[in-house]
């Protein structure tokens, strides 16, 4: 082949091949599930509120009406949270699931912004009809935890944030009190806490109560699958 033809064929190979690869890339990117972001609602300058829930299954709506590929897996309502920078975030978590014993009692304590702290807890009665008083606690019984909300930052990428809040097991046995999506649940434990964000960054949070089926550590299944028991918190 003369040189010009060779150069032309080379260029054609790169363009054609590159195009095919770009198509493959788009297909891959759109196949990967991203849940819609939940934004923190500003209540006053420098403050905002955000509410999520934790469920005993995946029927509450974010995985579709039939619960997606794994309707029986435990799930959080949102795995894509967005909060503003330099703000005090007031977070509420409604915990609908039963529970058990943690494997590391460290996570039974409340930690906010890297220091031991307190959160407020409100429990439904056993028959689910009333709520008890709001209690301010620094932790809960390590053998009676439903999930945890544990958030940490990647140093070098924004201000480090460490938050870990135990979400107690739901004591209510009235399993059909609330209907959300196609799931029926008992009235939730309501947990409230606040933490401060610094500069912009991307943080990961996940539940630190391993309940995911494998023999070693139980971090398989829902615990290891994006969109169930872990998610992203973007500070923007």
């Amino acid at each position, binding site marked *: 082949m003369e*040189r010009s033809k060779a150069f032309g064929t080379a260029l054609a190979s790169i363009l054609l*091949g*590159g195009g095919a690869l770009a198509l493959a*890339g788009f297909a*891959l990117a759109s196949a990967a599930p991203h849940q819609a972001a939940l934004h923190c609602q500003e209540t006053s300058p420098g403050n905002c509120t955000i509410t999520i829930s934790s469920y005993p299954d995946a029927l509450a709506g974010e995985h579709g009406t039939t619960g997606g590929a794994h309707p029986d897996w435990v799930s959080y309502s949102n795995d894509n949270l967005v909060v503003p920078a330099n703000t005090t975030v007031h977070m509420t978590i409604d915990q609908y699931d039963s529970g058990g014993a943690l494997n590391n009692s460290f996570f039974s304590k409340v930690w906010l912004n890297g220091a031991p702290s307190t959160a407020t807890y409100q429990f439904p009665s056993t028959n689910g009809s009333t709520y008890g008083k709001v209690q301010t606690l620094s932790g809960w019984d390590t053998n009676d935890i439903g999930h945890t909300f544990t958030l940490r930052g990647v140093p070098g*990428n924004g201000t480090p944030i460490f938050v870990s809040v135990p979400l107690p097991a739901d004591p209510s046995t009235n399993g059909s009190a609330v209907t959300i999506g196609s799931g029926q649940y008992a009235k939730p434990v309501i947990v409230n806490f606040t933490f401060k964000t610094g500069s912009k960054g991307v943080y990961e949070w996940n539940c630190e109560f391993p309940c995911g089926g494998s023999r*070693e550590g139980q971090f*398989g299944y829902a615990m290891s699958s994006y969109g169930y028991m872990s998610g992203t918190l973007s500070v923007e």
Partner: protein
Amino acid sequence: MTTTLEHATHAPSKGGGLARRQNFLTAMIGGVVFAWLGWFLSHHFLDSTSRNYNDLVTTSLAIGWIFGFWLGIGALNGPGRWLIGADHTRADDLYYAGENQGRARYWKYCTDHKVVGIQYIVMTAVLLGAGGILAMAIRTELIVPGNHFVNQQVYNGFVAVHGMLMILALIVAVAGPWANFVVPIMCGARDMAFPRLNALSLWTLVGAAGLLLSVLTVGSLTMGWVVLEPIADQAGVGMDLFAMSIIVFTVSTTVAGINTICTVMTMRTKGMTLARLPIFVWASMIAAALGLYAFPFFSLVESQTLMDRTFSTSFFVSSAGGTGWLQANLFWLMGHPEVYVILLPAVGALFEISSVMARKPVFSYRTAIAGMTGLASLSILVWAHHMFTTGWASTLGGPFMLTTELISIPTGLFFLVIIGTLWRGNIWMKLPTVWLFGFIFNFIIAGITGIYLSDIPIDNQLHGTMFVTAHFHYVFVGSVLFGAIAALAFWYPKVTGRYLDETMGRISFWLAFIGVQVTFLAMFISGLKGMPRRYSSYSMLFEHSNFVTTIGAYMIMAGMLVLLGAVVRSWSHGEPSGPNPWHANSLEWLVPTPPPLENFDVLPVITEDPYNYGEEMVQA
């Protein structure tokens, strides 16, 4: 053993029944049908509430797949007919060797080693292509910090499958095409010792590749290709498919290894003493022997992982009395020799190329053999250098450091042989030579950075960082892949009768060569700075080095696309080369292009090695 071809008269193949219609399509159909059967039976008879249910079903599905695939491609025809007392006749053998079938034989269970060699070229390209797509996805994700392209679960899945696909591709990259196509002719044989096993090794690889690719469709894995325990116990059903693909692949590589060794030891033509063999044959044989030692470990450890997952055994699960360290040891007992199984055929081809292109004998043929043998033997004793930081056995650190650093001595001998061969030669700067020089440049960097990692204090800092990744990519991409492409450019005229286009080949070389330096030097910097490997997202500290690495990766991709274009275009439009374009003396160049069905009309008698240029090779 016949020294002349029988020109038997026989009727050309007629309809011939179902067996004669088997090809890749029937193999796929067979695989799918029996996979469904495996799924159906296990689904029906197993308790769906048991914890191992999903793993058992997936494993049954995979077993069904490979059995059906073998049935569909006709792998079981030969043994089957022997069992019922209706063994293959000579006419059957010639049919299975692809006589009179034209292009169709490339899709079938063809025993002709030259057809198998070409099928391996295609498989190598498929595996490299699939692995390459995943590599581009990985680098695209890592171009800037933060998740943008895919989420971390999808990304983590890419990492393991990219690794395994590329390892498979490189194990077969030189050995598959050229130990099959060229080695029997170099020995003066009509085919390999076990032609049916040759076809089996290729089609089993295809079946294994199918299983490996399917891992991506079931949520993949969240661990590296080493699939360490105990995290492998935690993985989804992708792990079962992965383990099965390895177990199946081990069949392919074992069969191929036995075939290569038996061919070289028993089927050399008269006068072809071991000392007159082209050095590439030695390299193929030593690599095959090392593979026979190493790959059964892989099969073993994946079987144990599978048993842990399907039958709740506890080889590797510490909460049940096992230990992950056992898995790591068994894996690396395979894993380190395996990298030399990958390297040796490429180095052997480069020895051959340096001799032909410098018009000089291989410098110190005996040192080359001693070096390769020494490397292979020592490689059996170094495995725990992958485990320095596991906390497994700190007292063994010193001994493994010793054996690992000793390996640099035989590795250094390769440079002596290649440079010694080129020294004062009349170097013919054609495409194979260009890639050879690229190899020399990259292999020094690969070797030296390996020595850093063999030193425990350094390893304590650099283990698990991108420094390690950059080191082995200099070995696999910078050295082995460059060697494989040199081999391709070298033997391409023998296969097709045309040169691989020089200009496109050089464009591809410069893109790949510069791309390798940009990509992996920047990756060394990421590692020195402290970026661990297999990270889906990273700190701002590593932002610049990762950006540069990704740009380099796109350059390599462009180079590989140009190479693919060159291979495809030159196959039918390349400049005709004649049967011996490089004026070499080894037997493959002295037969016509393409070589006839059984290679030689009359088997040659050899009186000297093939390294006397300037004289015609003497045949009796």
